[in-house]
């Protein structure tokens, strides 16, 4: 949480009024199978948006559609005010992208790849790149395909960050990185964010990383965006309680917006959205002998949110 707090302090003066990413009613079918179902999403300038979802949930597809690499079936996506299907070279130069699996030209030497990126990036920051290569110890004389997955990830990150992007899109960027390199990456991401107005869209399976740096969370389940709200708001809204009743557990608590419930003897564990005094009163009617809140991490919330009934927890 220390990292997250440091970002919060740095970004207090930042602008968060303009939407850098806008997704409107996005639908995508692959071979008749619905992969994305009416996705609506807005990412304001300066926001670090953590996009979460299980494997094949549609995270990479959203990112690829946003970047214009994949045509949408229906709907509209805009990046930095321009339609994704028609991004100009200027807009491309303002977007740093780290793809899942790290799309680099494999048969190039690292030095040649860097030279190419430098020549094709109008805002290339050579000093920053040198700092990154020293930090990551990137070998310039080796071919990309000879690098380990971790080294490739570091190279890709360095290239994406050296172009001084307005918007940084990271599709599972820490995949293949060890703990130290992951921490280094997060610190670098913070470096980028500290420059006023920079925005990050960040998809990851490592929820701890997302929790550390994201200030807004989106969770995709079965092609639907079931959660889209601030991280703190999400933690406020989703609560888990352990209820112990004197005799047996009541058949129906008459509570709405229950995501999950487990019953074992006299004990009931429930996960509820929008817990409030009214819901507390309803539970009190059954006079539980104890009602304890179980603290939930982002990982716990994620697991609850990706269970089969996602509609019930859609946030504003």
């Amino acid at each position: 949480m220390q990292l997250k707090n440091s970002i919060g302090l740095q970004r207090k003066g930042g602008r968060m009024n303009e939407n850098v990413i806008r997704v409107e009613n996005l639908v995508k079918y692959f071979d008749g199978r619905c992969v994305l179902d009416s996705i609506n999403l807005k990412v304001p300038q300066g926001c670090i948006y953590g996009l979460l979802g299980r494997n094949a949930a549609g995270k990479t597809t959203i990112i690829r559609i946003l970047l214009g690499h994949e045509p949408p079936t229906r709907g509209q996506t805009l990046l930095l005010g321009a339609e994704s299907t028609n991004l100009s070279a200027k807009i491309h130069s303002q977007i740093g992208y780290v793809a899942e699996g790290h799309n680099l030209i494999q048969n190039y030497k690292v030095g040649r790849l860097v030279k190419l990126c430098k020549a094709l990036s109008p805002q290339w920051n050579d000093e920053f790149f040198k700092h990154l290569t020293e930090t990551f110890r990137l070998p310039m004389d080796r071919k990309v395909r000879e690098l380990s997955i971790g080294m490739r990830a570091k190279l890709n990150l360095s290239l994406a960050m050296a172009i001084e992007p307005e918007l940084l899109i990271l599709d599972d960027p820490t995949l293949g990185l060890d703990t130290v390199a992951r921490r280094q990456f997060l610190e670098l991401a913070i470096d980028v964010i500290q420059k006023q107005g920079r925005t990050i869209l960040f998809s990851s399976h490592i929820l701890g990383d997302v929790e550390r740096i994201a200030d807004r969370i989106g969770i995709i389940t079965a092609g639907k965006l079931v959660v889209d709200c601030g991280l703190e708001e999400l933690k406020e809204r989703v609560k888990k309680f352990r209820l112990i009743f004197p005799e047996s557990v009541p058949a129906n608590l008459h509570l709405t917006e229950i995501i999950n419930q487990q019953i074992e003897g006299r004990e009931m564990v429930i996960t509820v959205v929008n817990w409030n005094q009214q819901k507390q009163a309803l539970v009190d009617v059954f006079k539980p002998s104890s009602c304890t809140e179980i603290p939930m991490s982002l990982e716990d919330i994620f697991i609850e949110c990706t269970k089969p009934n996602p509609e019930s927890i859609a946030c504003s």
Partner: protein
Amino acid sequence: MFTLIKREIEDHIGYFIGAGFLSGILIIVSIFAISAQEASVAVVFVGFYIPVIIMLMIGLPGMGVSQMYTDRTRRISVFLCGLSVTRGQILTVRIITGILAILTFLVPLTITAMVLLRIFMPAGRIYSLYSSVASGFIFDIFITAFLMSFACYCLGLQTGWTSSRITPTLGGVALAFVLVPLIIVKGFGLHIVVILVLFIAASLVRTWHRFMSTSL
């Protein structure tokens, strides 16, 4: 744009070297044949020009296929689009590179043919008449050869944008083998130029549409 052209040339330097090499061989053989006995011209034509034409019919679609197939499988465009580059620029640069490879082969040959004509044409009053007729003929051959080569290359571009191995390998070459005999049927001249231009336009429009609208 220049950086992208340089990258494409460097990545497909083998085709440029091959084009230059074939052109060089044909120049040397032509000079030798034209200065030797007349009968040897036919031998040279059958022995060298036909194999070279076959090599071109394989090589030019091969270059187009190589550019597109490598991009598709190694996702080079995805990487380049992460920089200050659009899909349109990538394809335009690719086409320019193909044209440069064709010119690497044809321009030295054409220049040599013109020089040889000037050297070996009969002198005197009718020289200028012969010269202008011959120049027009060379120009026709150059234009037709260029368009034919470019059409073969466009076939490669069109069939190469796939992740299947068989379609690009066989498709482009097979279509090129259908296309080239058109010259034998129609000969040189405006009609073949029109047919080839229409064919190239259709092929490029199709390639452009696919490259701009499908997944990278």
